[in-house]
């Protein structure tokens, strides 16, 4: 039994209320359910953001940024259209390519970023209104302008949340004022955590691990920890082959390999040296050397796989013959 228009609308409202920033995640079935199977005119419009996680690392496309701005527009629209009539006329959706390749084809999505508006009267999805490439330059404001132009609905001005709210600022200031004398007293007595060398040691090693993992690259490029395999969606891909980018899990794994060798070397030279029994020393050293050797070999292999770099030993010409 085809659902009635009001049922579909209520379902969309329900989905929106549980979605982050009110952006509903669509897949192929949802496209069929809410768009192609519903006779025109539909009681609502849909604006759809097409996402591709495996392209988040491409800094020229700036997909994570546009996605963030899209959610901002959605949240603003919901806030400013909280009444019954306008709030249910437009819904913000997103489709991710790994889940919904068929939908990409139905909308004729050939390049990203891509935003489509499905109006109540749209029948052929390839003819849905598309946000012009130039409109992307202004981000949320341009998206809002596009929405208002196409749907006649009002989004109002974009409200960007402050990094820290006023209340939080007040609390922080109060905490600082109250705790400063106490902190000074503790510092003078030498009783704080800061006086413990182990805290600094762990912190230093952690910052090192954090940095050589390429974590700043992951943050700046908004790389996911892993992606799904194109051919088999049940498998996960943790390493990507492009030398100019990396996934989060990949970075942490290699960062761990970088760090563990040094830690084991320090363990041997500072701790194992104090062990009394020779057999225990041999066992510990064997373990440390094996793990270190494996870690170095692993990094060399991964680097070769990723960048093609190989060891090029130089031999005198007379030896080569």
């Amino acid at each position, binding site marked *: 039994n085809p659902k009635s228009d009001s049922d579909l609308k209520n379902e969309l409202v329900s989905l929106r209320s549980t979605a982050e920033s009110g952006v509903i995640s669509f897949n192929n079935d949802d496209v069929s359910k809410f768009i192609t199977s519903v006779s025109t005119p539909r009681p609502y419009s849909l604006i759809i953001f097409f996402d591709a996680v495996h392209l988040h690392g491409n800094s020229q496309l700036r997909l994570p940024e546009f996605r963030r701005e899209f959610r901002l527009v959605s949240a603003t629209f919901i806030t400013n259209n909280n009444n019954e009539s306008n709030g249910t006329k437009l819904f913000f959706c997103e489709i991710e390519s790994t889940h919904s390749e068929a939908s990409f084809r139905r909308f004729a999505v050939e*390049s990203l*970023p891509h935003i489509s508006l499905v109006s109540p009267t749209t029948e052929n999805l390839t003819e849905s209104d598309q946000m012009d490439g*130039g409109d992307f330059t202004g981000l949320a404001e341009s998206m809002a302008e596009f929405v208002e132009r196409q749907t006649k609905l009002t989004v109002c001005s974009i409200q960007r949340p402050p990094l820290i709210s006023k209340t939080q600022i007040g609390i922080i200031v109060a905490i600082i004022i109250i705790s400063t004398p106490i902190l000074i007293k503790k510092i003078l007595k030498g009783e704080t955590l800061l006086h413990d060398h182990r805290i600094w040691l762990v912190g230093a090693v952690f910052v090192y691990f954090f940095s050589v993992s390429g974590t700043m690259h992951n943050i700046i490029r908004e790389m996911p920890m892993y992606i799904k395999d194109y051919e088999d969606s049940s498998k996960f891909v943790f390493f990507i082959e492009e030398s100019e980018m990396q996934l989060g899990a990949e970075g942490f794994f290699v960062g761990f390999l*970088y760090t563990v060798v*040094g*830690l084991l*070397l320090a363990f041997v030279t500072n701790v194992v040296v104090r062990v009394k029994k020779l057999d225990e020393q*041999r066992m510990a*050293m064997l373990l440390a*050397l094996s793990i270190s050797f494996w870690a170095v070999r692993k990094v060399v292999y991964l680097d070769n796989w990723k960048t093609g770099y190989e060891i090029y030993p130089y031999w005198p010409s007379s030896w080569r013959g």
Partner: protein
Amino acid sequence: MAALESPLPGTPTAMRNAFGNVLSVLILVLIGVLAFSIRLFSVIKYESVIHEFDPYFNYRVTQFLSKNGIYEFWNWFDDRTWYPLGRVIGGTVYPGLTLTAGTIWWGLNSLNIPLSVETVCVFTAPVFSAFASWATYLLTKEVKGSGAGLAAAALLAMVPSYISRSVAGSYDNEAVAIFALIFTFYLYIKTLNTGSLFYATLNALAYFYMVCSWGGYTFIINLIPMHVLLCIVTGRYSPRLYIAYAPLVVLGTLLAALVPVVGFNAVLTSEHFASFLVFIIIHVVALVYYIKGILSPKMFKVAVTLVVSIGMVVCFIVVAILVALVASSPTGGWSGRSLSLLDPTYASKYIPIIASVSEHQPPTWPSYFMDINVLAFLVPAGIIACFSPLSDASSFVVLYIVMSVYFSGVMVRLMLVLAPAACIMSGIALSQAFDVFTGSIKYQLGASSNSTDDAEDNTSTNNAPKDDVSAGKTDKGEEIVKERSSKKGKKKEREPADKPSVKAKIKKKALVLPLEASIVALLLLIMLGAFYVIHCVWAAAEAYSAPSIVLTSQSRDGLHVFDDFRESYAWLSHNTDVDDKVASWWDYGYQTTAMANRTVIVDNNTWNNTHIATVGTAMSSPEKAAWEIFNSLDVKYVLVVFGGLIGYPSDDINKFLWMVRIGGGVFPHIKEADYLRDGQYRIDSEATPTMLNSLMYKLSYYRFVETDGKGYDRVRRTEIGKKHFKLTHFEEVFTSHHWMVRLYKLKPPRNRIRGKAKKLKSKTSSGLSSKSAKKNPWV
């Protein structure tokens, strides 16, 4: 000192010390030779030429300095660049590099060694990399002794990250700045260890040299205050810390303000505020400690409350003033690059020029493997070694590695600052590891023989390092010991309890490892070092030796050389008038002024965004509009770099998106969307009409179809869209052998344009029309 300590000159200890010192000096000399030699691949494989882009400007400045002297250098206004704006050179360059090379050139010529300016410039970087190795030795020696110092120096001589900025021919600021950075840190630690005002003064002078050399000096004036604050917070304040810090801030800031390119930025920009805040804090702490020494405990509490309260009030006032200053500036007083470090996403959001530079990108993990290689594995061991035991000097080095590794994670160029820290840490780790493993082997071999004489030798061997240390600094060592004992006395009773147990442990058993495991570990470490050497030589020979002005490719017939750049600059130099203006994208500005000796519109000193946007707009516009822009700038020639024939990817078509974005950022009628098809820049049959009509497309692909009949672009890997077209406002005058550089001349205006121009001029003011009449030679 050795003679004083051991009255018998023939004793084994004295002989060993003397031999050790001689051996250290010899090793350091060899390390210097290594650092210099490994950077000569570019000279051997190509020839002695300046590399890349920026170094050509530095070379030209050095030429001017050597000809005209230092006062003309300070006052130099260069009208051959950024036409018609020009550029004040003396006040906008970091003079350290050019003054250094100029002094070397002057000194050599005074000795009747007639080296050319270019030769001196080419070899300045390798020479200073040797100096940097020696500075690294001095720095690490202050932290952990000679062994670690030598290891760190050897590692720094070869570290690829540093090689990349200091090969022969890479005449850029980093060539001397890295040496200045390391030397400044050495003098700071030396002052910290000795409490000597002499070294504090040298520290300020070294900082001054660093300020003269590189904008990265802000790293020093932020790192050292952090270390001072760290020492205070962890209860390690001492008068030596005050002597190390206070003169540096006062003298260093005064000296920094003397450098024209810095000037009052030394006291006005946020990069320097941390040092002033810590300056206040250290005075408050010093006052508290002083009062503590002269007052009774009860009076001390009252006084501390008073002093700390006043100190806090002063700090708040200063913070309020600083916040007001920061708030009045749109960027918060920080430079664009510093903001990119504090907010990693800042550059891509707001400053396309910064984001467009490849060395401002965040690195991935393979970058660490490439640039510091096996040091990435050893650094954690070095960090832990610095904590056993933690001293003021070793805490500084830990802070240095932590800050530099974090910053290197944000901007790949700052791998250059990380490299010395990684070498120091790895040197410390290697030195400690070798001490443990070789000591174990020696002990085990000695134990197996069960000989009394061997036992005695082992005992003396164990004492040798201590003797070396004490021999090196008898008086200072005693002072340090006294200070340490006084500190320990102040601390609680726990330590006296700990001491006997530690001693007992030491007596019970020597700290050794099994013989065979130690040998295997040593061999693995040596293999790791060998891997490092091979990688560094490969990096120096293959990855970083290319001058970029001369390109090569390997083929079956051997090495093939593409010398189109120099070919084209030579053409400009010989076939155009000295006062002709050349327009190009800013990448080629320095080379054009230095090699062709022609005036350019924009160059690599990207200080005027509007001017760059004007050139970007012209390149993005149709032919007629572009002609009018260039004509208004008195441009006579346009230079375009095109890699489509041979597959050179760093050409102007691949940089075109930045011309559109930067141009469109200032001139709204340039819209990026007009050049995009499905979100991509395309030059094939699917390209947009705006793209196919843009000046950049036309100048790149003019007559290109004649090369193979199809117009296949080897970089974009597609056939071009519009193959047969004519130029109406520009005339091709030169195309280099491999079509990499193409030069076009602006055609004189046609009669109808002259008529239109006259009509247009009548609408403008008379002043403007008279100016244009003077400027435009074609009317």
